[in-house]
């Protein structure tokens, strides 16, 4: 339990922890550690040494902020908060209070003569520091903040030292006597002015659960080994362990004898003795709130059964009565819940900016968190923050609105069991944030024991209701004739939300204890009960239930057996604070902005691409008289260094049927792929009809191509393939000449079959038909006759000739000489990526009257021919002799040879194309 208590009491110190990593918050990170001697206090001469750390900002002089730690903590537990303030530009001074950490002295519970005097001494020190902005001689500009124990110190300091310029106390008390001995039953109804006003009636019920946790945290029992470091992530020194190594007093620990005696008295009697009351009064800010002029930011937790919202309400009311600016802020957490989030850190920083550093003024808005109680996802509580214009009832700017809900339920009799056991469990004091929510779950099971609890329900709500503050109800308590009962009834009142199926949720997980003096004559005592202050959304369809119970585990309740008759007078008065919801949203801003950026980038990329394409389209100039195809210096080197095409240059003119001849691997297909825009040339240009050819060039629409085999969707029929292909070109269906193309393919009824079932030849014909769709101005066919039967090859030649005859151009590639010879009128011969011959087929086959003679004696024949008039360029090629006859008839040459005794086996035109080609193929064969 002690370890848990440590977590709890150091937790408030963490409330201002910045979400940023410590390094980021540290800023320059210059700190000065120093032990400061301060007077020990009245009645002692021995000074007390305080262990302090000064955090300096980048720029000095700067206003200072005292950062006080929570009960059970030390200066180490506020390290992050102090660093965050230093990073914000303040000089932050943290110290371990006397009796804690490495400071000496005893815990006097924020006594004016001890801890408060210590803080004043620290202000004196700040007055002498050049790093701190000074308002005047011995008057530093200084603020104070802290959680819980440190928060009360801030209030007490501000109330006793006018030099303090702003304070931000967090989850702290106004009246320690009321916090530990609360009594929510007022015989005279307190005014309905502020939302969470508590009754604060005298002679309360001992909050023994919390008091015990509180006391044990300062007792000095060494923490169990291994627990302290893990339990105090902020680096708190094991609490209460005397730094001198002297064994701690086992019963009083590091408390002063006075505090120790007061606790012992309270814990054993369960009642508030006058001496204890005086001691607690001394430690209560309410004694000094009337003198506080430093602007005050009050932060209180909504899950706090130790210092409830009524404590902050009282502070706010009393300080605001001086005309001092007060801002109230409630967050979803507290001593029973989690530490405050970054919003609170930010709010405290903003408050000090405004009141110490001349920053933007802060408006008096009243933000309060509304938790739905549901968890979305694994670890996110679903909640929102409602911001009201101000805290109602403080300055008169806005007044409190309330709603009255009828309560039904007749007089009910409840019993106090002897010894006060079993007792209802509604909260788990000291368990802290980790298990705090367990309390509300337990309360559903053990929150109301049979016979011990009376219930008064409102009607079913027809609209949602947001309870903001402390509801109140008028209660009558009477004796039951014939039943035993002590003079006073100790009862516990609470508000619950009950769903139609009976699920009960205790609002605020808190109960309000009451001690009511009940007349002995049987007449009822009438009291006004202020129920625990909450911020609780109540859904439409549910009802609110006021329960009155006789026991509660967390309090020292009645132990005498008793029976009480309890009834309500009138309805339940529910405070409401109208405000606007600021964050209903769980969308993290970073990723949300990121999404917008990503979408924006995508849109920008799209737009840029569109513009570039538009500009590209605009420069294309139509030149109808240009040659269908001009290739200049074309080269392609593939990755890996293989040069498939080297410096290819040729030209195709309108109406030509041009053959691109070459053995396999000559680079023909690479040229055709570049012509189709499928691969990019390494060098050189291709222009078709005067326009550059590249990937996706518009001029490609005037070129129909069939390269390296057919490409069809196998699951579609031949007809559908052609239809969809044409549709993909985006041109009107009327331009396609689909029927003619299908006739060219000559597939008959098979055209309706899936292409996957076609033979190679059928696909080939379909692909050629596809190339002819739309009657392109230039038709490019790569090995069109592969896989065709001889009659089909013959027909193909006819088709191509007719096609070109209409003024169009055909480019056919082939590795077969005969093919080119019979189909084409022009030919380009390629080998090893280069053009080796280029010209009309006739020129190349029989140009210039060259002749070839096959003879038995080539040498003699060459001599004979060379002697003939006009004949020149005689060359011997094995058994053949070539010669330019230059007008001499071939027959005359034969006669001359025969006359000279040379036998002529054959004589004919010299077939240079074949020669060239055979030579190439021959080399290829040798190469292999």
């Amino acid at each position, binding site marked *: 339990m002690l370890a848990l208590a440590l977590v709890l009491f150091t937790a408030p110190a963490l409330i201002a922890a910045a979400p940023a990593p410590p390094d980021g918050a540290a800023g320059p990170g210059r700190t000065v550690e120093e032990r400061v001697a301060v007077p020990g206090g009245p009645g002692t001469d021995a000074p007390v040494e305080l262990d302090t750390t000064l955090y300096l900002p980048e720029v000095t002089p700067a206003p200072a902020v005292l950062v006080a730690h929570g009960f059970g903590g030390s200066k180490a537990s506020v390290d992050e908060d102090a660093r965050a303030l230093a990073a914000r530009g303040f000089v932050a001074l943290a110290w371990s209070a006397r009796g804690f950490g490495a400071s000496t002295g005893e815990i006097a519970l924020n006594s004016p003569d001890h801890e408060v005097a210590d803080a004043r001494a620290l202000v004196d020190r700040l007055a002498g520091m050049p790093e701190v902005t000074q308002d005047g001689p011995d008057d530093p500009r200084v603020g104070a903040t802290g959680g819980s124990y440190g928060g009360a110190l801030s209030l007490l300091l501000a109330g006793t030292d006018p030099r303090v310029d702003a304070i931000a106390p967090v989850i702290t008390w106004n009246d320690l006597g009321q916090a530990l001995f609360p009594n929510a039953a007022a015989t005279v109804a307190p005014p309905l002015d502020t939302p969470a006003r508590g009754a604060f009636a005298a002679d309360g019920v001992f909050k023994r659960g919390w008091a015990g946790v509180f006391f044990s945290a300062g007792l000095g029992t060494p923490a169990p080994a291994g627990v302290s470091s893990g339990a105090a992530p902020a680096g708190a020194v094991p609490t209460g362990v005397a730094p001198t190594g002297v064994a701690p007093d086992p019963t009083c620990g590091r408390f002063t004898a006075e505090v120790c005696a007061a606790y012992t008295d309270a814990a054993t009697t369960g009642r508030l003795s006058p001496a204890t009351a005086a001691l607690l009064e001394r430690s209560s800010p309410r004694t000094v709130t009337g003198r506080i002029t430093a602007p005050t930011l009050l932060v209180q937790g909504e899950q706090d059964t130790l210092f409830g919202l009524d404590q902050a309400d009282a502070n706010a009311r009393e300080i605001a009565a001086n005309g001092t600016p007060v801002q109230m802020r409630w967050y979803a957490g507290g001593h029973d819940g989690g530490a405050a989030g970054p919003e609170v850190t930010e709010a405290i920083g903003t408050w000090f900016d405004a009141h110490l550093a001349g920053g933007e003024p802060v408006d008096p808005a009243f933000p309060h968190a509304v938790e739905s109680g549901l968890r979305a996802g694994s670890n996110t509580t679903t909640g929102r923050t409602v911001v009201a214009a101000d805290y109602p009832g403080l300055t008169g700017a806005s007044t409190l609105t309330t709603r009255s809900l009828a309560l039904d339920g007749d007089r009910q009799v409840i019993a106090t069991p002897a010894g006060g056991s079993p007792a209802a469990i509604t909260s788990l004091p000291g368990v802290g944030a980790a298990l705090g929510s367990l309390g509300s779950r337990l309360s559903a099971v053990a929150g109301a024991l049979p016979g011990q609890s009376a219930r008064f329900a409102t009607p079913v709500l027809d609209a949602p209701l947001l309870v903001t503050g402390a509801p109140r109800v008028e209660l009558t308590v009477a004796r039951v004739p014939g039943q035993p009962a002590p003079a006073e009834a100790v009862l516990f009142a609470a508000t619950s939300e009950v769903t139609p199926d009976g699920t009960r949720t205790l609002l605020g997980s808190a109960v309000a204890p009451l001690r009511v003096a009940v007349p002995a004559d049987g007449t009822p005592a009438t009291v006004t009960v202020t129920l625990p202050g909450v911020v609780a959304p109540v859904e439409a369809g549910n009802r609110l239930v006021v329960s009155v119970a006789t026991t509660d585990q967390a309090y020292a309740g009645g132990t005498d057996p008793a029976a009480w008759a309890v009834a309500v007078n009138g309805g339940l008065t529910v405070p409401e604070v109208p405000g606007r919801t600021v964050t209903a949203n769980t969308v993290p801003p970073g990723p949300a902005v990121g999404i917008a950026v990503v979408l924006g980038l995508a849109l920008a990329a799209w737009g840029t691409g569109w513009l570039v*394409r538009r500009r590209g389209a605009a420069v294309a100039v139509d030149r109808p008289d240009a040659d269908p195809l001009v290739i200049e210096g074309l080269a392609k080197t593939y990755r890996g260094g293989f040069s498939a095409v080297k410096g290819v240059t040729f030209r195709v003119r309108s109406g030509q049927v041009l053959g691109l001849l070459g053995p396999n691997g000559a680079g023909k297909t690479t040229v055709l792929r570049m012509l189709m825009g499928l691969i*990019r040339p390494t060098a050189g240009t291709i222009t078709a009809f005067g326009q550059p050819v590249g990937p996706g060039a*518009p001029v490609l629409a005037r070129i129909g191509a069939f390269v390296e085999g057919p490409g069809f969707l196998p699951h579609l029929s031949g007809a559908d393939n052609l239809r969809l292909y044409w549709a*993909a*070109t985006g041109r009107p269906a009327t331009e396609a000449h689909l029927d*003619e193309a299908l006739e060219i393919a000559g597939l008959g009824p098979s055209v309706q079959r899936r292409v996957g079932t076609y033979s190679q030849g059928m696909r080939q014909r379909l692909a050629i038909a596809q190339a002819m769709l739309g009657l392109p101005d230039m038709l490019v066919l790569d090995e069109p006759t592969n896989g065709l039967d001889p009659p089909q090859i013959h027909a193909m030649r006819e088709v191509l000739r007719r096609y070109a005859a*209409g003024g169009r151009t055909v480019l056919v590639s082939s590795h077969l000489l005969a093919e080119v010879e019979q189909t084409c009128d022009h030919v380009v011969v390629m080998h090893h990526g280069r053009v080796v011959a280029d010209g009309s087929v006739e020129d190349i086959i029989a140009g210039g009257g060259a002749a070839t003679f096959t003879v038995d004696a080539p040498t003699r024949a060459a001599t004979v021919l060379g002697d003939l008039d006009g004949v020149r360029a005689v060359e011997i090629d094995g058994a053949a002799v070539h010669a330019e006859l230059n007008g001499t008839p071939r027959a005359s040459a034969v006669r001359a040879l025969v006359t000279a005794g040379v036998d002529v086996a054959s004589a004919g035109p010299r077939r240079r194309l074949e020669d060239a080609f055979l030579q190439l193929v021959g080399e290829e064969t040798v190469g292999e």
Partner: protein
Amino acid sequence: MSDTPPQDRSTVTGTVGALAAGPPAGTHRPGRTLPLRVELVRQLRRRRTQVTFGLVAALPVILWIAFALAPDGPPSSSLNLVDLAQGSGANFAVFALFASASFLLVVVVALFFGDTVASEASWSSLRYLLAAPVPRARLLRQKAVVAAALSTAALLVLPLSALVVGSLAYGTGNLVSPTGESLTFLDGAGRVLLGALYVAVQLSWVAALALLLSVSTDAPLGAVGGAVMASIVSQILNQITALEDLRDYLPTRFSTAWSDLLATAVDWGDMTRGVFSSLTWALVLGALAVWRFGRKDITS
């Protein structure tokens, strides 16, 4: 050739008729090439598309049969999704989506995107489309849009089918989440469909990766398998909690964030992060795909 009767005007006989005398080719408009409708028809008529849709539509029926055949086991102390699945139609749909989101739907998306270009390459039809010419960026865009439409449709067919099957089998009761919150059937159905939409957006990174692989390889199986493999590896890495914050950069880190939709108060945090993460991955991978396809030598 026996099935090809001789024709009057064909390559069979060598008579070509009026072909050569036709009018010149019309104008080309790049913005009209490969209309979405055409690409959609091309894809819809593929067997793999039909099978995929059939499978996602039939999956709920298969699940229902499995539940019906399963013997009643001993009552388990904790509620789980399988127990809840038979509670109502909406719960059944949630289960169906849960069961399929981490693998089946990944495969579906990877299939539609990974197959789209690579299969054209493997059929050699890609080069004819490009030479038509369809500009490369446009081809990729049209194919991505159609694949996205098909993926989204498949992702919605599954919960819709599950809602119908589940409602018939288990009634239209409230959607009850494992945390005990309940939503009305209509609300719950809406959330399930919203969840499916989130899954669709979340899988955009798979889509972009599959597209990148699709333009990088001629093997459709390689593209689809590669994308699915990447998803599995990411899911495995996500299991290694020791990676801590590094896991936030995994594209599958927030893949199940849509379950946040099953609460009355929706936490949009993880879903926002998931959408951001996925879209960022998708943008980078998609841009790579466009860049690569635009510069690639088409040798298929």
